[in-house]
């Protein structure tokens, strides 16, 4: 899947649904870029002082976090089983008094497997206080800490990565360093870039449905199970059919990424990452 196109489609989705837009923007930005870290962390003397919260509110939030959030996000909010490190989350960094965090807690993130939690305003406020406090603590903490830094992902060989891209990896079949991937490393860095490289999770497939009349309808695949196929057509409308009544063809070029998993060595992944990081 063309990464540029998937970005454009996401932009369209942003307009369609504010809930989805929150989910998507956050999903792409779990790890702050070095720039964001520098602004909030290292150059703290020039950045605004992080907001501090009343200790009893933080304590309440800590207890609630432990109950509902810690399994996935870690007890200290630095990530755990399946949930991202919230202390490195751009969504958290950009949050003001829960304007980002609150809706995520209350609506969940069905696309990412996060359940919703019915929580009162007071409870949300305590969670917000705890999460921000943890982020402030993490950013001011000296020395290394948990998480994946851009500097961790610099072990590959650019030339070997370029060869893999053009040769064994087959990447050049769909992608071009001067086309869709031009400037990719300026748009995405570190873990986020690597995750996109391995599999573009939010890529949308195309589908063409042929009705029994012979009429063909193409669109973005919105839903597919054994029984129903649904698409959003060129007018932006959702339409669906029973799979037994139509023929349909899904174009999912992102599946080429799946084919690669069993072929990659870890060196291939690191080399490819090194090469992509030159595409600024």
């Amino acid at each position, binding site marked *: 899947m063309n990464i540029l196109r998937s970005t454009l489609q996401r932009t369209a989705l942003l307009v369609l649904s504010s809930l989805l837009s929150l989910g998507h923007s956050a999903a792409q930005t779990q790890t702050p870029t070095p720039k964001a870290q520098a602004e909030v962390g290292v150059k703290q003397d020039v950045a605004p002082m992080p907001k501090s919260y009343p200790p009893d509110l933080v304590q309440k939030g800590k*207890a*609630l976090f*432990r*109950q*509902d959030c*810690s*399994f996935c996000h*870690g*007890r200290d909010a630095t*990530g*755990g*089983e*399946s949930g991202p*490190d919230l202390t490195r989350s751009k969504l958290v960094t950009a949050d003001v008094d829960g304007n980002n965090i609150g809706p995520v807690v209350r609506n969940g993130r069905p696309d990412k*497997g996060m*359940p*919703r*939690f*019915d929580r009162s305003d007071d409870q949300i406020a305590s969670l917000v206080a705890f999460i921000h406090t943890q982020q402030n603590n993490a950013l001011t903490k000296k*020395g*290394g*800490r*948990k*998480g*994946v830094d851009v500097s*961790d*992902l*610099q*072990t*590959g060989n650019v030339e070997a990565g370029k060869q893999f891209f053009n040769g064994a990896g087959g990447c050049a079949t769909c992608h071009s360093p001067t086309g869709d991937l031009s400037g990719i490393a300026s748009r995405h860095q570190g*873990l986020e870039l*690597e*995750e996109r490289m*391995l*599999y573009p*999770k939010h890529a949308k497939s195309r589908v063409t449905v042929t009705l029994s009349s012979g009429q063909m309808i193409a669109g973005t695949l919105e*839903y*597919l*199970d*054994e*029984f129903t196929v649904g698409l959003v057509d060129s007018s932006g409308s959702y339409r669906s059919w029973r799979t037994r009544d139509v023929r349909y063809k899904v174009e999912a070029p992102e599946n080429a*990424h*799946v084919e690669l*998993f*069993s072929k*990659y060595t*870890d060196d291939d*992944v*690191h080399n490819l990452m090194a090469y992509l990081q030159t595409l600024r």
Partner: protein
Amino acid sequence: MKFLNLFLSAVCALLALSSPRLLPAQGVDEQMLLHPPADSWPEYHGDYSGRRHSKLSQITPQNVKNLTLAWAFQTDQPAAIKSSPLLVDGILYFTVPDNIWAVDARSGHQIWHYNAPTTQGDHIGHRGVAMYKGYLFFLTPDAYLVSLNAKDGTVRWKVQVADVTQGYWTTMAPLVVKNHVLAGVSGDLDNITGYIRSIDPETGATQWQWNTTPPAGTPNQATGGMTWMTGTYDPDLNLVYWGTGNPTPVLTGSTRPGDNLYTGTIVALNPDTGKLVWFFQVSPHDTHDWDAVEIPVLVDATFHGEPKKMLMQASRNGYFFVLDRTNGKNLLTVPYGPVNWSLGVDKQGHPIPNPAKEPAPDGRLIAPDEGGLTNFRSPSFDTKNGLFIVDAHPSWSIYFAKPADGAYGWAGADYDVWGKGVIEAIDYQTGKIRWSHELGPEGSGAGVLTTDSGLTFTGDALGNFLALDSSNGKTLWHAGSGSHILSSPITYQLDDRQFVLTSSGGVMFAFALPETQ
């Protein structure tokens, strides 16, 4: 006389199958647990074998297309049901953290609701209750075992099973064996020891405790090995089988060289003493969070021509194991999906972890992902077709760990890259996949139930309940549920009507054939 005996046996057999039972409510006794009647589901797996296979055959491949909603029960709260209901004396008991519902199995009418909010401990999920006589046993997020009167939900007593302040919590459905309530513990975020504790069902007193690892702080030794899923039991051998979880620290093995016994292990314990009789480690020196707590399924059948008492597990680490459950000797170890973390299998059948695939600062591409090739959802053994049927999750992920992550608790980071769901029907003698059925992107949380009539009940990644033909995996019936399915189905027969129960989100659904006039 002979004829009369035969006749009487037939009548008794019919009575056993028919319902309502002629006796007044009795609760659960040892005989019911050893031979569950058709109108009951008296423990987590339905019976001690963990096969989640029912002899009921009213619903068949031919008539399942008529299956319809008998009732639905709304819990009216956001936590998803991850529990397997119990059914005793016509009443169902199912749970989410801090909550138990007692519901009429005929109508879905609520009889009582126990709601005791706790503020400590992880509320990640709850698997259900256990029952002994007229008493329920319920584990809480803050690691207490609560005993309640099944008739009204009043609390008899409450005992601490683990110390929540150390980082333990509890989610599992206890296993009742004779006069023992066996409880396991959870807790991956701290370097603490997993254990199984046997508790007296009358008094709450501890009878014995078996620890997975040496005490925390023992040099060069792992902690962990949580015991968060319900085991199985062979009454003839008097052995309880239990899977243990991953070691801690989770993603780094630097401070815990060696195999890290008894983490990632299937253990056979004497239920009366807690003594370890044998063990088989399915994930030596795990560094990927692959608990071996998946159901140890007990099957008596021939293996390459020889009658065997077997134990089978489709493990989270991607391997399918068949063991001789009398002694723990390995009969078969074979991957049932993409697995890239091992150097192969040793002579005793243990996978050999590849040191180059331990989490690293620049990342390692690993299959399966942290959720594993399967997880707590139950598989089923279809005795008729000799198939081990599991909801599998072929998947890839990247694992990171660096010295700065330390050696406490999680100690690293991992990220799912891609996954899907697929029902796999595994030939237990070869590990070959006889048929498979795609479930959709990411994967499904639904467990599997099979019946003697040749049906496989499960759910897909998009929230459809499915009934499949057990012989070939073809879809015979479906119904959209509107949410994620995160539990394993059960079945029972009441008033000569067979029900299939399965949850989705916070709703419990009961399906049956239309009632005839």
